[in-house]
């Protein structure tokens, strides 16, 4: 059970790291789980997972940017729909401006979609670049 959890943790690491070290880390788990304590290794694996995604991968940047933008857009959208106190002048203005709000909603949706597409493209380019820039040792062995 613990081995399966550790294997799942390793599978969730970024691909470059996983392809390079997952087998060895699993080998260490098999060898050291009894001596070191499986729970400690599981915690270490979870910390490693966070470290690799948050600190060593560029994936979080476009995702965070997209999330923040979506949060802002949602907030603006929510504020535009906020009902005022019972028949107030402001509420009347909002009702009269219904077509404008519809247009704004459409614009916000398009903007959100654009942000998601840009984030996806940025992520795809980052992955493509990381594939091209192989580590020095691999390049050396390939050259040899």
């Amino acid at each position, binding site marked *: 059970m613990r081995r399966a959890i550790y294997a799942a943790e390793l599978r969730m690491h970024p691909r470059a*790291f996983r392809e*390079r*070290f997952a*087998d*060895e*880390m*699993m*080998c*260490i*788990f098999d*060898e*050291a789980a009894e001596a070191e304590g499986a729970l*400690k*290794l599981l915690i*270490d*694996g979870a*910390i*490693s*997972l966070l*470290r*690799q995604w948050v600190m*060593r991968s560029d994936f979080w940047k476009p995702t965070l940017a997209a999330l923040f933008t979506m949060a802002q857009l949602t907030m603006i959208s929510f504020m535009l729909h906020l009902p005022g106190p019972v028949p107030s002048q402001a509420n009347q203005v909002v009702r009269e401006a219904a077509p404008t709000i519809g247009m704004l909603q459409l614009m916000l949706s398009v903007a959100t979609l654009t942000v998601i597409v840009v984030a996806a493209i940025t992520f795809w380019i980052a992955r493509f670049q990381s594939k091209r820039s192989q*580590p*020095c*040792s691999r390049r*050396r*062995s390939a050259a040899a």
Partner: protein
Amino acid sequence: MKQALLPFLPLSPATLHILLCLAGQPRHGYGIMQDVLRQSNGQYKLGPGTLYDNLQKLMDKGLVEGAPSADANDDPRRRYYQLTAFGRSVLAADVERLKNVIHEAKFHLEAPAVEDLG
């Protein structure tokens, strides 16, 4: 000290221990973990996550490289690592830096404190 080595200094404790382990002979991951524990008298325990994160950085910077397996009966998943010539220079430069730190520390700690003189 060569200017090319300066960006790598000072080494972090984990990096220093890993490079020290590999200075003697090529080792596999678990071997490095055990040797770090021995070097530090059990005070510094390196987990596989920290070890391979550091190895990844060291290999990308060209300080460490893969080495052929020392034992034919080894688990095929096991890989060996060794220092490159550049890695050895960086380690030597950091050890030299640490020597100066120790020299300075000894000088200040062994000199009588100001209040003792007064």
